[in-house]
């Protein structure tokens, strides 16, 4: 069974997206990067991110991740912000009662995008 199926597949992503996005938007360390963006479009991106982290089908290359975040890096996006997002990912999965060993697998996948997201 794949990680994606173990976590709960599409249903888990749908359950996680509201919880995760709410945490991100409420967090004063990072919510300035989401000022003025359309919430529905942003939620779709959060959903894509969660699908990737859950080991689902990945339609994003490293180059996509770099291009997609370059304007945020220019506005000061750095490791501390990435850490904050990682924190919310873990807390979201905990809230959904995902077992710890699956949470660390998901975190490792999300972590693997760090250098591309931060243009390093």
């Amino acid at each position, binding site marked *: 069974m794949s990680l994606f199926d173990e976590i709960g597949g*599409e249903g888990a992503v749908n359950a996680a*997206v509201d919880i995760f*996005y*709410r945490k991100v*938007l409420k967090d004063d360390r990072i919510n300035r990067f989401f000022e003025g963006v359309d*919430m529905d479009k942003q*939620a779709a991106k959060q959903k894509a991110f969660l699908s990737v982290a859950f080991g689902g089908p990945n339609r994003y290359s490293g180059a996509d991740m770099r291009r997609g975040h370059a304007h945020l890096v220019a506005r000061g996006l750095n490791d501390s912000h990435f850490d904050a997002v990682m924190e919310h990912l873990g807390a979201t999965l905990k809230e959904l009662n995902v077992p710890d060993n699956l949470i660390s697998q998901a975190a490792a996948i999300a972590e693997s995008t760090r250098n591309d997201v931060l243009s390093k």
Partner: protein
Amino acid sequence: MKASKGAVPEKSQAGLRPTLAAQNYFLACSCVPEGDMEVTLPDSGFGTLSATVTKTTRLNDDTLGLWLRPSRQYEYRPGQFIRLHKDEGNSRCYSLASVPELDGELFLNIRRTPGGLVSNWVHESLGAGDQVEISEAMGQCFYLPGSPEKNMLLVGTGSGLSPLYGIARDALLMGHLGEIHLYHGSRHRGGLYLEAELAQLMSRHKNFSYVPCTSGDEPAAGCLPGRALDLALARHQDLGGWRVYLCGNPDMVNSAKRKTFFAGASLKDIHADPFGF
């Protein structure tokens, strides 16, 4: 894409907003047809047709009720909007306050905007018997049957009441069982309208409440003082599982989207229609 005929496989609608799925939109990339389907591109199909003005009614000093009879069979959901054409170059969108089963005709609430080409034309020139061009109905802000036990919060400012009036009556007609709370905000009492109709609706349906709110300095009898959004959020602090409809001033709508989401409403249950008049 959008299916105009044939069954839409459920799998091809996974992840779509429920309002889009209800209108037979689907994802072409994950659609394996189970039978013959007739499909169109998502943004096609908004042709125009003519309609006859059957009457106009004064709703308040700035807002006119415009009643239209389309020249052919016309499908829409209360809360969607249509484009009303003044002439070739000028048109504006207005929300539908009518419910097909209750009203027969289309009912628009048109607020006069200073210098507004279309709204002033409607207010000054249109009368019973006139012919106008309208588009087919568009938009995602409407009531969906299913989960009738869920509570609903409707917040509108100005003529943002128009779609909400349609949505609330549509929900009640379809037998919605959960509470339905409608907050209409205006600076002054004179900006409110359809008060008698809404009060009557409230007396007929135990699960429906209408709360007129005035945010100006002068308190108005029968109205709560303050902004509609603030009052609604103060009185309904946990919106987990609620359906939310937000219409009117774009600043209010955008702030309301965020605040109702923070109060627990799921993004897929927040329906918003921002417009500037």
